[in-house]
């Protein structure tokens, strides 16, 4: 029943990988500076963050929900971290643990309210977005924390691999592997996916769906907090506006990466590496468009066109491979 086409080729990831390679080729040949050390280093940092944000959204999309509070949550966690380090003098390692716990806690609130009230996560996180961000501004009075320990801020500007790659990217890629492991090779990961795919069936099969949904939201909060820490290290300060008003600046990358990566919006399917490739693709295109010099005002336009092209191409690939498998 199987045919000559290897399974990997049929996946969305493969299509993305090809696109990524194609765009790297195009930009390397058509622009100066794309392959420069400075540019690749800069790209690696942007990609690192976009991957993390994308993953944070992905794990909630898994439940068939959304997390609009992602940016607000990430910034709140980062500000909390800034406060710990600057005002409380808590050591970096402990701060990071505290921040991740805090992020998970905010995620738990999202999950708990969603599960217990039955109000849709879209609305719940719309409200908590306002609430988290409001409390953050209120408590910090919009003041940044910028006297962070040097060891911490230096990490954000560390350059590895012959100064080509930021350590932040390594964190993100490692996170991908950990998540992949969780979803593919653990009992709990499988339960998360099953609960997302069909809550009723999962419940009747002895899975506590409510708990799984809360876990997903907590994981989302955890990853968003991690993204917040990474951004803080990169900027060298914890700033209330670092993800824009209400954390909005994170929302588009948060959707783009998983959605391009092939995560099903109706829930029940995750693609960790797809999300990673999605983030890489978007960052590449953005960067390439600036380098090609299409005129900044038109960057978004071309980004949209290329995104559309990418999803259409991917659909064509699917069509082609499926057609082939019928024939044999």
């Amino acid at each position, binding site marked *: 029943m199987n045919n000559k086409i290897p399974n990997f080729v049929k996946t969305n990831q493969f299509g993305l990988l090809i696109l990524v390679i194609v765009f790297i080729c195009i930009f390397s040949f058509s622009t100066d500076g794309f392959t420069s050390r400075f540019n690749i280093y800069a790209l690696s940092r942007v990609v690192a963050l976009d991957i993390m944000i994308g993953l944070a959204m992905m794990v909630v999309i898994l439940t068939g929900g959304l997390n609009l509070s992602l940016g607000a949550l990430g910034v709140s966690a980062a500000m909390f971290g800034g406060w710990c380090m600057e005002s409380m003098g808590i050591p970096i390692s402990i701060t990071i643990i505290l921040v991740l716990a805090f992020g998970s806690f905010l995620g738990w609130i999202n999950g708990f309210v969603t599960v217990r009230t039955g109000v849709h996560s879209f609305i719940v996180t719309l409200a908590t977005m306002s609430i988290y961000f409001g409390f953050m501004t209120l408590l910090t009075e919009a003041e940044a924390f910028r006297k962070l320990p040097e060891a911490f801020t230096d990490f954000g500007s560390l350059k590895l691999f012959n100064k080509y790659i930021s350590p932040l990217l390594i964190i993100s890629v490692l996170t991908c592997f950990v998540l992949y492991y969780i979803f593919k090779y653990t009992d709990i990961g499988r339960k998360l996916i099953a609960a997302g795919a069909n809550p009723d069936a999962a419940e009747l099969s002895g899975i506590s769906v409510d708990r799984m949904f809360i876990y997903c939201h907590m994981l989302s909060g955890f990853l968003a907090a991690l993204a917040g820490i990474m951004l803080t290290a990169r900027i060298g300060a914890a700033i*209330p506006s670092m993800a824009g008003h209400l954390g909005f600046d994170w929302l588009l990358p948060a959707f783009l990466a998983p959605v391009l990566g092939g995560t099903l919006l109706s829930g029940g399917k995750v693609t960790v590496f797809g999300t990673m490739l999605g983030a890489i693709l978007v960052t590449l295109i953005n960067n390439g468009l600036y380098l090609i010099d299409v005129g900044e005002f038109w960057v978004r336009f071309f980004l949209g066109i290329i995104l559309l092209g990418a999803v259409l191409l991917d659909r064509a690939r699917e069509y082609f491979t499926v057609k082939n498998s019928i024939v044999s």
Partner: protein
Amino acid sequence: GHGVTKVALVPGGPHPYFAAWEQAGLDAVEDFGLGKADYRVPAEWDLSQQNELIESLVGQGYNAVLVFPGDAVGTNKILGELDDAGIPTAALAGCVEQPTQAKFCFGTDTGHSAYLGTKELIKALGGKGKIAHFTGFLVDPNTTLRINAVEQAVSEAGGGVEIIQVIADIDAYEPADEKINAFMAAQGSEVDGIVTTAWVPAVVAAQALTNMGDKRIKMVGIDHDEVVLKAIKDGYVHGTMLQNPYGQGYIGSYVMDKVRQGCEFKADAPWKSTAQTDQFIDSGTVFVDISDVDTYVMAMRGISLEILETFDSTYLNCPS
């Protein structure tokens, strides 16, 4: 051997305030013989987008960057990295907070302009009355500076003036329209004066007063949007605090070239200090009202030329 200077002028995002930078850059190329001085706009108001753009500009060979800081603190990091790469930078139109690797800040002292504007408003009110303050995003540290500056001006007025309401987070037209009109409906009869310290609230408030046909309430706006200027001419708005974007772009590009040629800032340069930085050069803020609203462009040009004429001798030590 430093080659030709290629300056990038990078605003915080698409916004009409910065439009004058484009021509200013072109003029600077012409007048001072720069290689390039291009106006490059991030696609969105987003610190990361701005950073990405700046990074890609360096990739394209720009070797000096004038930037409106996407964030007064957050932008420092990339400025530091540019400095490490031997690329001089300066903050334009708004400042970054110290410590910073930016060579200097050339722009409007946001706190000070809010302070001046409020002073003008209080003068127009005859030293007493109730005022409201409309401003931008709370998470922008400038907003806090402005709120404090307005409060300070009011406290200096000695009890006759009172701030009855501050409305913030209205940097987009539609929420601004909704909230400002709601304010007019609820407090319109009580309030005597309005000070606005961000572009959008100024436009919307000017429009609201015009629509209402209300000349009783005195308003001081900010910037040079046509709606505000027209409302001044029509008498609905008392005046506006103008800034000097053209001068910023023109002189900024010039100085960047000088710095690349090896000029250093004098140790005893007469810097001004603001809440954010003590390496500040004022690009000029003027208050205009109905009497000089038509001629402000000339006035600004005058200020710019004045700064330019004495710049070398006042601020720079250049290798001969």
